[in-house]
């Protein structure tokens, strides 16, 4: 079972935080902070594991990957394989890459909902449901289409509103 997924930048700003067992926001903040404190103290070229039991309680493991300015962090328990989780981070990032054509931190900042959709397609209630980025892309595109369609039949003002806002 996956307990949490976090994406944060190298300054410790969270870009995505998803906890699969309910945590109040104060607790979330605390967890993200303590994870970042440890992450930022780790050198490059060391293993991608981090001791997590002191932060997330017994039977927790944590793997992370560092891409450019971002840390991708997965927290999970003993029913997941550590290396498979690293692969899953890779799948997640690859999918984002396909979504945004060479993903960078800014894409993620401005497309928060889309990133969330991607993640929700991969991990469902803490379980890994999809590991192929092509399948994820398919689903994400359909959802976007559906959203756009439902907005297209919307009342005129809303459409204009967004049009004006962009100017």
């Amino acid at each position, binding site marked *: *079972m996956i307990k949490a997924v976090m994406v944060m930048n190298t300054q410790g*700003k*969270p*870009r*995505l*935080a*998803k906890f*699969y067992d*309910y945590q109040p*926001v*104060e607790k*979330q*903040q605390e967890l993200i902070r303590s994870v970042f404190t440890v992450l930022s103290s780790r*050198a490059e*070229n*060391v*293993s991608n*594991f*981090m*001791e997590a039991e002191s932060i997330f309680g017994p039977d927790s493991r944590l793997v992370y990957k560092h891409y450019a300015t971002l840390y991708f962090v997965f927290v999970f328990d*003993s*029913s997941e*394989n*550590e*290396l*498979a989780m*690293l*692969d899953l981070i890779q799948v997640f990032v690859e999918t984002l890459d396909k979504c945004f054509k060479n993903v960078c931190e800014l894409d993620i*900042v*401005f497309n*928060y*909902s889309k990133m*969330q959709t991607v993640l*929700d397609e991969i991990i*469902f*209630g*803490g*379980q*890994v*449901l*999809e*590991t192929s980025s092509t399948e994820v892309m398919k689903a994400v595109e*359909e*959802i976007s289409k*559906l*959203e*756009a*369609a*439902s*907005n297209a*039949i*919307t*009342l005129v*003002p*809303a459409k*204009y*509103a*967004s049009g*004006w*806002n962009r100017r």
Partner: protein
Amino acid sequence: MSGPSIMETLFQRTLEDLIKGIRLQLIGESAFISKAMEEIRKEIKSTDLQTKSIALQKLSYLSPLHFVDMSWAAFHCIECMSSPRFAQKRIGYVAVSQSFNEHTPVLLLITNQLRKDLGSVNEFDAGLALDCLANIATVDLARDLTPEVFTLLGSSKVSVRKKAIGVILRVFEKYPDAVRVCFKRLVENLDSPDSRILSAAVGVFCELASRDPRSYLPLAPEFYRVLVDSKNNWVLIKVLKIFAKLAPLESRLAKRVVEPICDHMRRTGAKSLMFECIRTVVSSLSEYESALKLAVLKIRELLMDEDPNLKYLGLHALSIVAPKHLWVVLENKEVVIKSLSDSDSNIKFESLRLVMAVVSESNVVEISRVLLNYALKSDPEFCNVILGSILSACSRNVYEMVMDFDWYVLLLGEMSRIPQCQKGEDIENQLIDIGMRVRDARPELIRMARSLLIDPALLGNPFLYRILCAAAWVCGEYVEYSTNPFELVEALLQPRTSLLPPLIRAVYLQSVLKVLTFCIHSYLRNKSSGLFPFTDNLEGVVSESMSKGKTQEASDLPTPAQDDVFNPRISDDNPYEDLPLENNGEDSKFDSFEKNGFTRESIVNLLNLIELAVKPLLGSLEVEILERAQNVLGLIELIRQEFPDQLSPRKEILAKEESEVSKLIRSMNDAFCEELGPVSVTAQDRVRVPEGLVLEENLKELDTICGDIQPSTSSFFAPRYGERIEESLASDLQNGEDSEPSRESTSLLIEHRKRHGLYYLPSSASNDYPLANDLRSGENDRDETEDFVRLTAQSLAPKKKPNYSKPRPVVVKLDEGEVTLSVASKKPSSKYDLLSGVIQDVLQETNLMDKSSRKGKEKVSSDVPQGSKENVQDPEDPRREKSGLRKSKHRSHGKERKHKDPDQVDGKKDGKSERAREKSSHRHGRKKTRQRAEGPLNVSAQTPVIPDFLL
């Protein structure tokens, strides 16, 4: 649509605007966010769903990333999720799964909306609802929506079906009775040709099996098929995890799966799958030698890999296998030891854990040596982790592993001298503990304490204060083992002790008092016994022979506090006794102690020294110090009255001393000789609570009274402040007298320096002591590593127990349970019990049907192979067959019964099965009924029947 809402819609900021705003804001992020929140609060009340949903979207963006509470918007979430438009609905659903929990009051309102969406033709609507359910399902929701989830389990759309499978986990957990409805369909999904559905189903079973493996044994054939057929690594990893749980429960299963697992291990190119195979073998199948050998081979590959991840996992696998097969670790000891100096902290910690796993009483000496050397070289954090693990390993079970306490005491001393050592408290406790528990270790203990106390450099390191405190206490308490008490006094009163925090200084002073009492007492006893003529030439010989004779006597006596025991109990089997005391300058007043014993002159010198050093302390502001200084000085004064400085007529003094001083001294000495022992943990319980005493159960009330009073440790490491005041006060006080404290202390310092020049820097820059924290230069690091590896090559190898020259000394243990306080084993939560009950229940039914359908093909198994062959029973009567099976089980599998008292189980069963039978008889056929009733109740007494696919 009303006017204002159009305006709102027109000028509402979208999420994108908000994000841009946050990045460009000039007023500070938190101010900007609170402004945005104000907007959101306004917009979210809008009657227009579009406005509302965008506001909600912004809120659910801010909540996780900027830690804004959004529980207040619960109702708005529900409004959005019931929107007919997908985009709005989605925003609503995301917000709900993000912010709702069991205590959200409006949770009850979403049941119908969820039901509607679960039944929607649009797969994405259903997907949203399932996702939401997977995150927030409560008991009520799970119960009410079970039928819908059941329907979706058979959905033709893969994306819906896999999500329905995923949601099952949460539903089962919350509402175990859902198993009766959904389990069969869930199992059917294991046969699905679509790998995504299979993966989801296996994932769910992996989670379920990790909580209660026994219930899923009957499904082993299905899992086996997946293990052999599947090509998908994700699925295989999950199946392996399931087998890792199931194999220990059923030996035939283990035998069956071990080959396919090895095949996967050999064939696969994926490291994740290979590691999972290794883990499965080492954790659950380690009794299969060939498999274990293969796994060890693969572990070695991992350890040799450049990738730190693989290396770490290799070490991790070793630590799994270590408890059962230590040889695997020993085979790889070189890598393990080398990893202690790896740059990656995970790897370091893991290898330390491994090293600690192989430590035993035969190799503890060597391993500690190796580790100590690593501790010296590593960063402070890891150094202290190493020290901590040595300390805890050696002290485990009342120093079970320590054979030679002299060695251990020296080791503790050595640890204290490691510059980064911060384990002062642990070492302090152990020094005192050993002192109290192990009588034979006391001579060495006091020797070690002396060497710590005498070193002025150590007084500069605040982390050592606790250790010095223990050393001072040891010196006072066990002074009779000391070879030179005068030297101890000198060490305890050396000038740098002013650096110590007051409480520890107080301990020093108390020790001075004890040592003083001891010296005077010994002197008086020698004199009064009349054996000592006061001529220097004879004294040494006599005292030595005296002490030898008396020591033997003393060692025969059980308690040292006997009145007639002669006191300098210098044990005569002490091998170090005749070693010259190093560090003693030539001109020491006391270095002739061993020859002279307690001469009148030495006593007088002692008194002078103490007086000189303690007098300034009368000005101390610290009560503890003041009090003790008074005590010491008071005693000295008392002695001096009847112990004048000149060597006046001896007879008179003798008579006088006999009368008063010696009486006083003797009683004091007796008091100090009273041995302190360890206290049993249960001691408190044995004391009866006196009548009328009200003991508060809960001390929380105290918090209100003394909430802000906390034991301040801050003053602990800031001794300078107190010291200065103390000095200035002292000089004020003593101005009237002729002695000037400042000159006094410098003269003391100079004298000390002269005597213990070894510890001072060669340069004469007066007060510059070497920094206690200065790190050793890391030269020759690599060579050292090699050396350690070579060293451990021998030391880690299992040896025969070395013959110790002396037997292990007695360690005082009070109660056997002192350390191993039994912790009541945690019972699995009742929910899982419930769940497993239902699952077993359902499985019994399915099995029954399976069996009757293919009884021709498969024989029914029992746990005892011979038994099953002999009583091949009528498969038409499953009940009898089962009971026969259970009997054979009771006969043969004693270990299973350990879990629960069989009588108790049977007793309960009889009563319950009746009831259960009545209850369920209207639903099921007669034959099944009995079976059903028994199924769940036998949970712990019997493994469920596995259709024997092995035969």
